[in-house]
């Protein structure tokens, strides 16, 4: 056996078709068993909890105020930031530098406006451009993009039609922030934020450079209405 064949054998033992298949089947059947528990145990617990809440409420004084009566009607959200350690090189530019992405400018293509109302843009920034990003090979749309600001200080909003089949926000290791009942994941690396959420039937990914946390919060609160 040549060295090339020996290396090939070792690689195929590591990235192995049959092993991967077995792992997939194992995971799939484990998920199925987990679901049986979910369909029985969790509903049972929920029913018990619901009944308990009703019984408890029936014993409360009639003039007992609901907690919401004592706070402002719009509560200031607290951003739960996931701080990321330095990965590799410094951050420059926007996702438009992805190697497999082409940029199509606004005047050629219709770009849907994804927000329900106005947007609170940080001081000294303005909408600079909107465009569509395409995959180079087949011209399938990757994302719509709206950029605010300049090369140094900016907010880059990329979004695409939401796909509930395989866009999953749940990850037990990541802290989430709730803004107006929308679940948002916020990450921070150096002077940059990266935000993920689904809103108005779009999946959003937002990159910012040199925007303060307060400016980011105002921006997100203005979008997520």
């Amino acid at each position: 056996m040549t060295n090339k064949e020996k290396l090939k054998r070792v690689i195929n033992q590591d990235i192995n078709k049959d092993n991967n298949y077995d792992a997939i089947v194992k995971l799939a059947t484990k998920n199925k068993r987990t679901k049986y528990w979910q369909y029985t145990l969790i509903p049972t617990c929920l029913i018990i909890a619901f009944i308990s809440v009703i019984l408890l409420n029936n014993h409360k004084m009639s003039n007992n105020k609901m907690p919401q009566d004592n706070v402002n009607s719009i509560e200031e959200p607290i951003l739960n930031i996931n701080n990321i350690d330095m990965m590799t090189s410094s951050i420059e530019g926007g996702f438009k530098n992805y190697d497999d992405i082409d940029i199509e400018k606004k005047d050629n293509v219709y770009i849907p406006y994804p927000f329900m109302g106005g947007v609170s843009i940080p001081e000294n920034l303005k909408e600079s451009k909107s465009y569509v990003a395409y995959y180079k090979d087949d011209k399938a749309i990757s994302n719509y993009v709206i950029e605010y600001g300049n090369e140094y200080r900016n907010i880059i909003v990329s979004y695409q039609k939401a796909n509930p089949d395989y866009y999953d926000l749940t990850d037990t290791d990541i802290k989430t922030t709730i803004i107006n009942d929308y679940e948002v994941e916020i990450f921070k690396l150096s002077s940059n934020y990266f935000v993920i959420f689904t809103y108005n039937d779009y999946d959003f990914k937002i990159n910012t450079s040199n925007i303060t946390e307060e400016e980011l919060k105002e921006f997100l609160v203005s979008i997520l209405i």
Partner: protein
Amino acid sequence: MTSQINLSKFNEVYDKTYNHLLKYVIVKCHNINDANDILQETYLELWNILHKKTLMDTNIKSYLFSIANNKIKKHYSLIQRLKTISLFDKNTDDIELIDTIADKININDIIINNDNWKIVWEYLKKQKNQDIPKIFYLYYTLELTIKEISQALNVSESYTKHLIYRTLHNLQRKYGNGGNSHD
């Protein structure tokens, strides 16, 4: 019965698409050590979908690649997006050494201590420049040409070629007879 049909369908799709998808995942992933996980997550997703609805055969492959693409993005959402594929030049660190390496070294000429190629593969997978294990996989396992590898990874042919030869040189030095493989 339905579950048997779904399993049969899944098996059929798995057999037909595995090699293509594996190549795609290897090329697109940031770290080759994640390839198995991403592959499994992708096919698991397909499994779940096949159990919920019927997919046309003509759509399955592109659907599968879309799932894989999203799994890769999700897998690397922190790294990839936060880096935002910047203007940095990933080849910069290698350029200085490229011209100093002779390009006539052949893998079959290397003599590895104890013929332990598993340790060689582990070494390759640990490289900071993950193009190295990718190129070795594509070159020696899938037997793609230098040109095909360069196109797949979107790098120059000279970069690919010299990465292979420089790594083989390093392997000879590290794991070859007389080399210090305890580094």
